[in-house]
């Protein structure tokens, strides 16, 4: 252990919900997108799932809203070390979309992509079983453009760069294909509980 002289840090809070190396950002919700925030209206927004699936499909805003509503209440964790507790997102479980397109048995991974061209890769297992959403509400209000509105992917059990803003689609694959930050040295999976920040962690 490399102790820093005179460093005490914030008062210790025993918070079992705080992953290693993270701090509680409180009411802040930093915006860290690397590109210009797109002017994308709900009428222009679409969400497509294709690749290794039985029935590739594109949903419009209205069609996506016909699927059963689902809410995530819990925490989110950013690789830059902040965590935010007790957030509430509204949208549709990704399972509802995947049940329609039916991934092949050979499918193992997905690349999520945004209307900006941003990409991020995820194991299919992290996108199923009630652990991932297409979210368009935050705190009961429409999701703000700088936070990914009209709709973003939400995978709250992984670092938040996996929760692609302005989500446009998922390409289902039988291999892991690194996305935007993953090609920039970030970890392929990004599990905050194992502190998988960078490639090699």
């Amino acid at each position: 252990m490399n102790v820093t002289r005179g460093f005490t840090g914030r008062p210790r809070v025993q918070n079992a919900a705080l992953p290693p190396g993270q701090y509680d950002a409180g009411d802040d919700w930093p915006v860290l997108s690397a590109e210009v925030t797109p002017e994308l209206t709900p009428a222009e927004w679409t969400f497509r799932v294709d690749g290794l699936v039985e029935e590739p499909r594109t949903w419009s805003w209205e069609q996506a809203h016909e699927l059963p509503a689902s809410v995530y209440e819990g925490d989110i964790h950013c690789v830059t070390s902040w965590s935010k507790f007790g957030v509430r997102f509204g949208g549709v479980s990704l399972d509802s979309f995947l049940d329609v397109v039916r991934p092949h048995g050979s499918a193992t991974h997905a690349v999520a992509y945004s209307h900006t061209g941003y990409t991020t890769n995820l194991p299919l297992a992290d996108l199923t079983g009630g652990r991932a959403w297409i979210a368009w509400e935050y705190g009961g209000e429409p999701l703000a453009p700088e936070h990914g509105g009209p709709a973003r992917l939400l995978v709250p059990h992984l670092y938040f760069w996996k929760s692609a803003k302005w989500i446009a689609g998922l390409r289902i694959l039988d291999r892991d294909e690194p996305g935007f930050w993953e090609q920039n040295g970030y970890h392929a999976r990004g599990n905050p509980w194992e502190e998988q920040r960078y490639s090699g962690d």
Partner: protein
Amino acid sequence: MTDVTATDVTATDVTATGVPVTGVTATDVTVTDVTVTEAAVTETFAPSTRFAVPGRIAVSNRAAALWQTATITEIRRETPHAATFRFAVPAWAGHLPGQHLMLRLTARDGYVAQRHYSIASAPDDSGHIELTLDHVEGGEVSGWFHSVAEPGDTVEVRGPLSGFFAWPGDRPALLVSAGSGVVPLMSMVRHHRARGLDVPLRLLVSARSPEELIYAREYGAETTPVFTRSAPQGVAVGRMAAAHVASLLAERPPGGWEAYVCGSNGFAEHASRLLVAAGQPVDRIRIERFG
């Protein structure tokens, strides 16, 4: 593939696992072996979308997994709220201007605080790097730097990280910042000077007042300061506006400008909208925001 997107990249220059290379020294990994390859065609999935993320600047990730000891060698005050900290990092692997690092402090009981900071110094082979840190109210890390740190103290750093907001010095650079957002851009300005590069580089830097303008003594003809609260005699006071951006974009260097925007999210949204409205392509705007 019609758009230049984040997928216009080469995956092959990323080390397969990022496993730290043992025996890395300052001499066998320097900035000169950072490969700059963009828009290489690969089989990586490329979505067809309306908007675009700029292509990536390929950098070596070999050093990113290693925590290294950094020893403070010098502290220089820049403004009432910001100071520059110079560190000796003997095995520093080199960086590109615009890259950042992760820094961590460890308390006696094992408590760790870590933050991302942009690198202020230009890449060189001195085995030293500089960070310029704002004193954030209540900030446990910046508070330690501004209240406790002295030359001789050690911290740990890991990096350099991320190739997205990097400038390799190979393309015209239009740099736009506010407050301490100027820090990674100053690395670019210093690199441009140190190497005597003839590719055009311009800096538009916003500060509340002349006293709050970080690196004020270092700017030259490439820089246009914008003051939002108080300004020297004869200089207008006001927010960065379309006219500031327009006069820079009017110059049309071969290959076009690559814009780098750094500041708070509010500033980044404002400045990137000004750039888009003035005709700068969205896929040539790189943004780094801090919360």
